[in-house]
């Protein structure tokens, strides 16, 4: 008998090997304390938790768990696209009384889902990957302002502005937060309308799943304040988790094509917005504090031209302005999207090339530089992006 047990244990080889660490999007960053690892595990569980009617789902909602939109912490799929509506300029959302700003297009049995009111301006959004967010969160306001160039003083055609927004009382300011007429710089979400991870997560619970909390107590269905449907500590676990999900690391980084592609990425102007390196300020989490990392974003808003004007806007962004998305993990995301690429805010691009070729506005130059590359060079640039 004990021989058999020994036999089993020594048969580790017959247990399936997993993908190597840098081929997976999810997982903790290295250098976490034991306490932080514990919080990571608790938050990971909360991220996968399925909300049922009994737990307060809906009654109208878009999805039943964080991970059903952010599968494997990866990018979302069109099946779980969400629709924001009701605002087209800076006069605010004109459709709040008709269910804005987000369409809860599904409902539990016995309830009717919300319908898009006639004439409402709208935009469709696909979930972004939720990786390396702690690092992005820890970049100082000062760094963002230094990268911005709202009136394009350097004349490179790329402006880039920070998103000054009004923030809810419950969010805590980050160290060194800069204020401007009562507004603060927000950086999360497709239009940089969320200040920090807690802000985004509380909104997600409320608007995506129909779960009220101490932070967002208004039930989106009835419009009334109701008791919290989630324990506050769980929200904090979610925040701790998202802060410490690792950032994707580059694969194949010494491949000559990848190296040539990286060079092109910098020279044709992609790096003006997709900033290769950023450095964090102080963070109480040592693994996030004063670290240089490679997200390929400047966290700023850029105007990508008329084809990116969906009619809807929020926060400080104009209709055709979007926050530069990080490009890290780009080579891995399609394994969370069912094997196909759905890129850009609404998933309209089905390949990296298509995403690049649709860039206009401030990225017009970079796009035309891309078009004038040889097929080989284009291939090298794509190889580089896929290695991220």
């Amino acid at each position, binding site marked *: 008998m004990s021989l*058999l*047990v020994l036999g*089993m*244990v020594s*048969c*580790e080889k*017959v*247990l*399936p*090997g*997993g*993908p190597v660490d840098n081929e997976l999007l999810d997982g903790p960053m290295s250098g976490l304390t034991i306490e932080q690892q514990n919080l990571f595990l608790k938050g990971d569980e909360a991220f996968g*938790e*399925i909300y*049922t*009617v*009994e737990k307060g*789902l809906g009654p109208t909602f878009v*999805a*039943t*768990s964080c991970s*059903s939109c952010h*599968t*494997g912490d990866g990018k979302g*799929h*069109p*099946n779980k*696209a969400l629709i924001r509506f009701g605002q087209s300029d800076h006069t605010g959302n004109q459709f709040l009384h008709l269910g804005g700003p987000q369409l809860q*297009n*599904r*409902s*539990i*049995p*016995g*309830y*009717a*889902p919300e319908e898009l009111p006639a004439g409402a301006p709208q935009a469709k959004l696909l979930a972004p990957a939720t990786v390396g967010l702690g690092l992005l969160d820890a970049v100082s306001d000062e760094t963002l302002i230094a990268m911005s160039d709202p009136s394009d003083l350097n004349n490179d055609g790329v402006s880039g502005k920070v998103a000054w927004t009004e923030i809810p009382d419950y969010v805590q300011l980050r160290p060194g937060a800069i204020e401007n007429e009562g507004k603060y710089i927000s950086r999360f979400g497709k239009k940089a309308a969320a200040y920090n991870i807690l802000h985004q997560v509380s909104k997600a619970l409320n608007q995506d799943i129909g779960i009220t909390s101490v932070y967002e107590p208004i039930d989106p269905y009835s419009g009334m304040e109701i008791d919290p449907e989630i324990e506050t500590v769980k929200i904090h676990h979610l925040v701790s988790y998202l802060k410490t999900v690792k950032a994707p690391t580059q694969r194949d980084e010494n491949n000559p094509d990848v190296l040539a592609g990286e060079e092109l990425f910098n020279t044709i102007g992609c790096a003006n917005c997709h900033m290769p390196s950023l450095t964090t300020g102080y963070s109480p989490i040592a693994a996030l504090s004063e670290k240089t990392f490679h997200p390929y974003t400047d966290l700023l808003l850029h105007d990508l031209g008329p084809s990116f004007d969906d009619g809807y806007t929020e926060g400080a962004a104009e209709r055709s302005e979007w926050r530069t998305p990080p490009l890290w993990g780009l080579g891995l995301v399609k*394994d*969370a*999207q*069912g*094997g*196909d690429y759905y890129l850009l805010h609404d998933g309209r691009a089905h390949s990296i090339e298509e995403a690049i070729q649709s860039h206009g506005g401030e990225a017009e130059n970079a796009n035309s530089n891309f078009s004038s590359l040889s097929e080989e060079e284009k291939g090298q640039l794509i190889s580089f992006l896929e290695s991220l």
Partner: protein
Amino acid sequence: MMKTSIYTFKIKLFAIALLMSAFATAQDNSDSTIASLNMDAVYERPFITQGKLPVAIGGYLEANMIYAGEEGVNEGLSFQARRLTMFMSSSFGKNLSFLSEIEFEEGGHEINIEFAAMDWYINSGLKFRGGIIMNPIGAFNQNHDGPNWEFIERPNSATQLLPATWSNAGFGLHGKFFKKGWTLGYEAYLTNGFDNSIIDNEEHKTFLAASKDNSERFEESSNGKSLFTGKLALKHPKYGELGFSYMGGVYNKFEEEGLTLDQERSLSVYAIDFNTEIKRTGTRFIGEFAWVEVDVPDTYLQEYGERQFGGFLDIIQPVYTGKVMDWNKAVINIAARFDYVDWNDGTIIETGGNIGDELIAFTPAISLRPTKQTVFRANYRYQIQNDFLDNPGAKSAAWMLGFSTYF
């Protein structure tokens, strides 16, 4: 409302009884032919009878160790005492008998009355059964005792597609007819049934077994509608057994106190099961396939599938019969099981892409049966499971070693 449902219940029961008594009069009178079907499994358990006590008791125990890993993460070694099940039966008075099965799982944390029914024998073609009944959908639900199987895990299609072990309060009829070596068995029951949890659960998929958590089904129907389960099984000793079964009804709570909550939503399950043996080689084949159709609200999530399919096939080959240690009539088998479950058969509306939510597993096994009532099993199980979006599947594997024995 209550009144009409009892009324329709009675009518259905009456119709079935009429039909069956017609059958019964047409039957061949060779009652004594012994041909046991899956439906007889509850009668064929080894029981201990003490002297002249009218009550017989018995049971079985299953325990094993498992060494598992998923996607390169080694989950290590652990020990599982999966279940202890007790049977009790008695015959009291002419033609009346009582059978029961109580299962303790998770160290007694979960106690289920799987079966507790009275049979009233009218003739072999017509028996009346009432109490807590095991719905005869497929064969595994009826014949699930651990010692009967070469595999430590129950088949996925039986536990995660069909809700083994699924029992409910209800009434019905069963019986058998014999002709020229053929046995035809039938069962027809009306019981309480499913509820909304089959499309509102933490599995995030249409999951019939979710209703097992609702123990109120032993007291009242979740919606005032009964679940019909019927099975026909045909067996010939030469060819084996073939069963067709159906289970269906309205699963959701559609009204309360006369107020409409939702439209009535139906559930239908179809299953085919078979078992046969190649006499010359002793090779046995046991299989079961099931199809599930559930009416899911259009405004709900696509994760909750409207169509499901799954099944398993066991192949068992005795390779040695004779003395092993102190056991003179021991048998050693090699066996293999194929499991397949598709919880959501369809395509994603937005993209036309295939919906995954599938599982495929392969389990080679070696078993040693020192006596008929006990089995030692060594299994290796390899499984690939795909998520809703059909992303690359998660691979996992496990070594399992254990025993299952009647006592």
